[in-house]
């Protein structure tokens, strides 16, 4: 009897020890309550958004470290002031004069201590790097500025003139309706000229994109590839100081792990929940879901430089094999709408008449017969390895296409690599076709047409079809040269008709964008035109 009592006592002690170790220890210390943990879906490719167009990089970098001359108000899509307190546009819309704010400080870090505040020299330095091939920093980081090349910034800007320390003027070659909207994108971040000089002196120019210096609400502390990014608060920030002492991006590519981390409070905010999890998350009372109608499109692009995709008939045939409804059910779990054009219906230039994809295998077969491929062929579909707002599961989408194409005797190999390699190989044009998409950077329709399909974008890499059509380019260019919205819409409709005829890509869906966070987190700002902004975020008691 005594022995049994002893045994019971031992078991109770063991349970006691386990429960002490196991109890939910409230992480409510000073540091924990001032640290935001964001579970992101991938590693940034660079710490300079000028060099890339990937949403992962924009989310991780752009709004946290940097400011722009002007920015987009997420609530209404209007361009508003940021580093520039005022912008004066000349009557002919050829000169843009930016008046900068005073006393804007750059980050002080363990690798750089600024001796002066932001001046026009920093703006000149930033844009000279992009525009001038002889700039010492132009080729650093590959010398590619995909967004700016896509919109033809170097052809657009005639000259940048420093008027005085706090005034700078951009002179354009042609009037362009989308210039200010482009200057407000997440790509047009302002770098420090003084830091650039320091790096030239120390012979470490490449660090400008790896150890960034900006004027934003947070400064760079530490980055471990595929693991985390740590930012600390910029104490001398020119706008109201953040409530957070640090933000940590916990890089977790796996969807289910990311979801588990949210539920165990290892993440406060979750980027890109899997569409299949959104329904489940709606039932959890401890989390809030922010849903935004996002300016995005997911599409299937064909490499028009390789056979048989250089034949518009084949491309058109393949477009008839896209079962949009099946895709929206299986991939988006209904949280998207079928795309009938490159533009989402919320855009003012959207034309409801354009209708590219229509599931019809019989028609597809007829077109293939006409193109001389009645016996089918073998092709690759590259599927993104990461979740993006416009495509939560490219692999699944590829499988659905694979099934449809099998009916047409087309053998599909689904190809994927890690995200970095995937993008690199894609930029090299090694693909047959790819399932990818686009998240707009501003509210201007030009932001869809030029980066995705212009000839310039085919060179810079954001045109995944490598398609170049003079007629299309001319329409898009003419749309830009006028400020009259009705006229612009006509040109965009023309451009859309060319896409429908030539099918360099098939628009598939426009997805709704979601961010999930615990309800003790407030003020997570998701810009429908770009990245995520934590500058006003507050963390309450858990």
């Amino acid at each position, binding site marked *: 009897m005594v022995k049994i009592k002893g045994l019971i006592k031992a078991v109770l002690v063991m349970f006691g020890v386990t429960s002490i*170790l196991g109890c*939910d220890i409230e992480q409510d210390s000073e540091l924990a309550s001032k640290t935001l943990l964001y579970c992101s879906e991938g590693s940034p490719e660079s710490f300079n958004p000028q060099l890339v167009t990937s949403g992962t990089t924009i989310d991780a970098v752009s709004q946290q470290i940097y400011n722009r001359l002007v920015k987009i108000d997420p609530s209404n899509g209007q361009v508003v002031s940021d580093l520039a307190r005022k912008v004066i546009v000349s009557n002919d819309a050829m000169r843009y004069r930016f008046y900068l704010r005073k006393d804007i400080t750059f980050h002080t870090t363990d690798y750089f201590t600024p001796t002066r505040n932001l001046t026009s020299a920093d703006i000149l330095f930033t844009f000279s790097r992009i525009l001038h091939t002889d700039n010492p920093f132009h080729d650093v980081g590959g010398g590619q500025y995909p967004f700016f090349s896509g919109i033809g910034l170097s052809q657009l800007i005639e000259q940048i003139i420093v008027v005085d320390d706090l005034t700078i003027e951009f002179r354009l070659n042609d009037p362009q309706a989308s210039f200010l909207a482009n200057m407000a994108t997440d790509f047009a971040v302002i770098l420090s000229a003084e830091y650039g000089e320091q790096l030239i002196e120390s012979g470490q120019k490449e660090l400008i994109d790896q150890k960034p210096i900006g004027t934003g609400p947070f400064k760079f502390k530490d980055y471990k590839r595929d693991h985390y990014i740590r930012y600390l608060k910029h104490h001398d920030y020119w706008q109201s100081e953040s409530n957070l002492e640090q933000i940590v991006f916990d890089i977790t590519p796996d969807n289910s792990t990311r979801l*588990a981390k949210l539920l165990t409070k290892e993440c406060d905010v979750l980027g890109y929940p899997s569409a299949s999890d959104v329904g489940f998350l709606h039932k959890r009372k401890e989390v809030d879901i922010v849903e935004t109608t996002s300016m995005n499109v997911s599409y299937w692009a064909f490499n028009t430089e390789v056979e048989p995709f250089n034949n518009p008939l084949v491309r058109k045939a393949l477009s008839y094999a896209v079962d949009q409804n099946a895709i929206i059910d299986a991939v988006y779990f209904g949280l998207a709408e079928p795309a009938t054009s490159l533009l989402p219906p919320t855009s003012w230039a959207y034309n409801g008449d354009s209708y590219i994809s229509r599931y019809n295998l019989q028609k597809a077969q007829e077109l293939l017969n006409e193109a001389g491929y009645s016996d089918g062929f073998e092709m690759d579909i590259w599927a993104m390895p990461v979740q993006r707002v416009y495509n939560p599961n490219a692999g699944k989408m590829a499988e659905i296409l694979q099934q449809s194409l099998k009916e047409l005797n087309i053998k599909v190999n689904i190809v994927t*690599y890690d995200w970095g390699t995937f993008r690199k190989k894609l930029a090299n044009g090694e693909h047959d076709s790819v399932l990818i998409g686009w998240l707009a950077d501003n509210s201007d329709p030009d932001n869809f047409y030029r980066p995705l399909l212009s000839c310039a974008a085919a060179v810079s890499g954001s045109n995944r079809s490598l398609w170049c059509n003079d007629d299309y380019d001319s329409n898009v260019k003419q749309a830009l040269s006028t400020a009259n919205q009705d006229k612009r819409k006509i040109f965009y409709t023309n451009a859309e008709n060319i896409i429908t005829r030539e099918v360099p890509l098939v628009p598939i869906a426009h997805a709704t964008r979601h961010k999930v966070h615990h309800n003790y987190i407030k003020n997570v700002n998701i810009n429908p035109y770009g990245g995520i902004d934590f500058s006003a975020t507050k963390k309450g008691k858990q």
Partner: protein
Amino acid sequence: MMLNYVLRKCYLLIFVTLGVTIFAFSLNYLFPGDVLSNMTGNLNISPELRQILSEEYRLDQNVIFQYFAYIHRITNGDWGVSFINDTSIFNQVFHALPATIELAVYALLYSFIVALPLGILASDSNRPWLDKPILALSLIGFSMPIFWLALIMILIFSINLGWFPVSGRLSLIYDIPVTTGFMLVDIWISELPYKMEAMLDALKHLIMPTFVLAAYPTTVLIRTTRQSMQNVLDTSYVKAAKAKGLSNFQVLKRHALRNGLLPVIQMLGIHFGTLITLAMVTEVIFSWPGIGLWLVDAIHQRDYPAIQGGLMVMSGMVFVATIIFDVIYMIFDPLARRHGHGKI
């Protein structure tokens, strides 16, 4: 005798290591792609650089010279660079290794602490009612796939109860400077204001992976201890000791334990390789940033130089651990020295 035995073991280690290096070296030729790229990790080799590297890697000479050049490089810490991120494999491996060693050591410690008393209790003929439940428990633990156990534990203790985190070694809130690579040690020697909080957090991160990884060795140890103790308790010298009037505890302490635990040490050595394989699975499930997770990532991404480096380190770990367990076994069992020939 002892020195002779250890020397023989080391001798064997050298030959086995040579075998592994030959295998790892041959992978340069067996993996698809350019041999020089596989060796260096550099995917874009210009013709000028190819000339220089070919000489350095002795590609212009026969395979024996290439092998010796390879041995020379790996002993100098030049294990090539990763295909994926262009960073030194050597640095990556030795950056990830402490996390795996830490996890394996804690799991083994846990196994000893839990399994030995249970094994001894199960062997006690005076308490037959304890034997069956303990054996049943060990059988369940032994036959349960650890990935399943890990997932069940995550579901119950992390997601439903919210007691333990699901991944990593420490919450990213805490920025602990890396000194030794062993998390608890690093936290202990750091001088940060949130040291105790971080320590508690690290312990919370350790509990589930340690328990999951320890499941297999614990169940093996329970059964081995039970069997071996039963054998020892059945021997004449134990019976004689009991007849002399020694208490059960005294018999256990003076006669049974030392002899009974000998096969346990040997068994641990034999199962260490399995433990390392299980550590890889555990690391992947709990995103534990050790060599296992690193190697699985390398395999996923077809990072051939990294796969070679990981292979050498993993096999090296298994050999060294096996030899250490063998030597320990021999220290406790003088009879083993008679069979002093090295074996793995």
